């Protein structure tokens, strides 16, 4: 047994859980496609798209990439830095609004409207 355990170190899990998650990924993808197919618009569209996206990404990272079973030292080292990208998103969000308004102003002056 000691010889056997030595060789199976690492991430080994029953196949059933992978199949289950696989199925869910299909369902979630179909759902996000249906959002577009059924022409859902406005805030509902964004809520649905982002929800399905986060769920899919979460399932892939947690189960397929085995993050669920890793020690917290690795999990935080990998998961936290990308979350900080959201700050960058916020900055660019306001920056692009500013650019948009500036352009509109510029073009209206240009056309004399």
């Amino acid at each position, binding site marked *: 047994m000691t010889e056997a355990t030595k060789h199976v170190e690492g991430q080994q899990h029953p196949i059933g859980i992978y199949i289950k998650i696989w199925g869910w990924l299909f369902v979630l993808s179909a759902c996000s496609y249906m959002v577009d197919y059924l022409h859902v618009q406005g805030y509902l569209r964004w809520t649905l798209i982002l929800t399905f996206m986060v769920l899919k990404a979460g399932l892939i990272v947690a189960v397929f990439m085995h993050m669920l079973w890793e020690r917290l030292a690795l999990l935080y080292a990998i998961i936290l830095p990308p979350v900080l990208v959201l700050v960058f998103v916020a900055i660019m969000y306001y920056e*692009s609004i500013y650019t948009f308004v500036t352009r509109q102003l510029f073009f209206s002056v240009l056309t004399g409207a």
Partner: protein
Amino acid sequence: MAETTLTHTEGTAATRPDGLEGFVSDWSSDQRTFKNVPWGKAMMWIFLLSDTFIFSCFLLSYMTVRMSTTVPWPNASEVFALSFGGEPIPLILIAIMTFILITSSGTMVLAVNYGYRKDRFKTAIFLLITALFGATFVGMQAFEWTKLIVEEGVRPWGNPMGAAQFGSSFFMITGFHGFHVSVGVLFLILIARKVWRGDFDIEKKGFFTSRKGRYEIVETLGLYWHFVDLVWVFIFAFFYLW
């Protein structure tokens, strides 16, 4: 087979604290931080982290140009519609590509699983199936690009449907992703060949790294492959569904 966690050098998992306490003790000085993880796997994670930032920057610049342009953005739902003789079905090609990539992720996970069981034959087969799905994905992307360039007249500097930034964002983001998939396919085939030949059963040294070949590499490659799928999840949501 039950879940087993063993370390290579320092202490077994049982003797180390879990949770936040474990987090602090793992990061404390004078020791290897990432326990229970082979060196190559930890490095693959670090690489994927840096790749995350690259794709984040691409998607961010896409968001910025799309929000700041005063010209209407082309409707992705219509641009990527495809008709099979009848009414055009919106985004159908992209949906099929998404399903293909998810399927390939599933077969990859099976390859990793059989790799841990040291099932040489099944591991190699599933790696090759994954590579086949990956190649199909790239092929469909080539078709999509051709259609966009030749029929719709989309160029990186402009297109007939609306904002010029549509082309540059599209070609850069999907191009970079497609490149990742292509490299993945290449490595899937390389590793499948090694598995098939039995390199990992006799711990044959790699010709480039001179490190002993182990089945761990299948999981490390799996991480890369799932990451490619992960990036597609975001591209699909932000580029095609926005």
